């Protein structure tokens, strides 16, 4: 049977994965702090019909050889770290990172997770938590009766209480930076977990030279999904799928012609 049939089938299944990814990106085009993913494909092994450099005669060798590729496969889907747009909310606990750092939060299991979504709130105990209630790490507690909360570019959190003029410092937000943020594990709820691929995070105070970035108060980072780009990707996936199905058709017709020989 023609290898082309299976090769084209691998291309079609790759484009299906591509479309699945586009669908998830588009569905999250309004998710705060969302990081889109990009699917990477790799070519499969090659069948060497004539090995390049093989002896053609005793004196000569084949200059190019004949290598027939056997298709494609989905290799990885990496997290794309382009910065999303900022939108002003005016809420004192809406934070964005102008840089490559991540906020650190503690999950109920005690594990540390990382997020770009800076929509924080204060829980019943005064702790700064995410929308899902996971506390920021290191923990920051806002005292009761705080009139205003100010967060500096370097992550310093200070509050003023009613009747007091001097601001009181209650903690500093620390950020984490990954050598390879593309290798982070998305666990949903805007959270990422460190993996061996992402490397171990470096923790630090915002505004330093490590590239963590600075914290902007009163803004939220929007999803970094570019709807136009996703549509282009979707059309490309659709057309590539069609092109692969045309190959199946061509191979089918050739085989059909062969089968009808001698009738």
């Amino acid at each position, binding site marked *: 049977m*023609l*290898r*082309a049939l299976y*090769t*084209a089938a*691998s*291309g079609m299944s*790759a484009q299906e994965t591509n479309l699945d990814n586009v669908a998830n990106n588009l569905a999250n085009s309004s998710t705060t702090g969302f990081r889109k993913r*990009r699917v*990477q*494909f*790799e*070519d*499969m*092994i*090659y*069948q*060497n019909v*004539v*090995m390049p*450099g*093989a002896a*053609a005669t005793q004196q000569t060798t084949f*200059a*190019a*050889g*004949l*290598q*027939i*590729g056997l*298709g*494609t496969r989905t*290799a*990885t889907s*990496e997290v794309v*770290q382009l910065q999303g747009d900022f939108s002003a909310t005016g809420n004192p606990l809406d934070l964005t990172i102008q840089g490559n750092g991540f906020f650190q939060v503690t999950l109920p299991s005690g594990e540390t997770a990382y997020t770009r979504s800076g929509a924080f709130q204060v829980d019943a105990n005064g702790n700064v938590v995410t929308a899902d209630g996971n506390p920021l790490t290191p923990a920051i507690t806002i005292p009761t009766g705080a009139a205003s909360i100010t967060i500096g570019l370097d992550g310093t959190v200070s509050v003023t209480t009613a009747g007091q003029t001097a601001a009181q410092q209650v903690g500093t937000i620390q950020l984490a930076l990954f*050598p*390879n*943020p*593309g290798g982070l594990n998305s666990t949903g709820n805007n959270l990422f977990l460190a993996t*061996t*691929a*992402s*490397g171990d995070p470096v923790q630090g105070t915002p505004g330093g*030279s490590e*590239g963590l970035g600075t914290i902007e108060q009163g803004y939220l980072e929007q999803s970094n999904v570019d709807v136009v780009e996703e549509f282009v990707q979707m059309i490309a*996936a659709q*057309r*590539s799928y069609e*092109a*692969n199905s*045309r*190959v199946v058709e*061509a*191979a089918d*017709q*050739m085989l059909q*012609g*062969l089968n009808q*020989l001698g009738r």
Partner: protein
Amino acid sequence: MWQTQPVVEMAGRVLLPMRRKNLGSGYYAACAGLRAQSQALELIASNVANISTTAFRGQQPMFHSLLASAGHQLTDPLNHAINDFGVLEGSRTDLSAGNLERTGNSLDLAIEGKGFFAIQTHGETLYTRNGNFQVSPKGQLTTAAGDLVLGEQGLPISMPSGDISISPDGTISASGAVAGKLKVVEFVPGSVPVAAGNSYYSGPAAGLRPAPDSSIRQGMLESSNVNSVKAVVDMIAVQRHAEMLERAMTVFESNLDHIAANDLPKV
């Protein structure tokens, strides 16, 4: 990877009836032509399937006339005309560059120019244009498949922590401290990359040289260089060519054999 017999050898077997000056040899000629067309379709299928593969290099089919190279002495012009068909001589890797797509990841590297990154897999040095790199648990720079990326001296690169910047000449640094330099090589004219799958290519050590003209773009990846328009046009050509050869085979089989078997004895 497995090896089958070279095309010329196989075609040589096809040529056997021809040496006997059998009228039906045109049938075998069409058969070999059809075989070449089906292999060409397989090449096109591989290109189309890899239209979204990072840094993929398309394969172009090359046809040649069997008689021109096989060295068979054919004195009979009719036999020559019948048997002068094209067989697929080989595939050529199209080395033209693909588009660069921005990803924003500091370990995504694209090469502008003819260069290839050197990587090590199972003790063998291979070359790739796919710069979708990551850091291993040991802190070394690897490909997405986990194979070590080699530095200028042919040794793995230990990555520093922090914000990594990679200059156009391949120097890796973090916060101003230099951690190493990527090995970037190009194939010398006349030396061809042999595709090894997983976006890797192999080549003889003598066929490679440093690529000072290539520059590295951080935060970008190169897309496949397959031209979908050309692929579809090639595919239609292959399809029509195959149809023609199938028609030719039908003619040989039905008409000529019929005449030989039924009509000639009656003359």
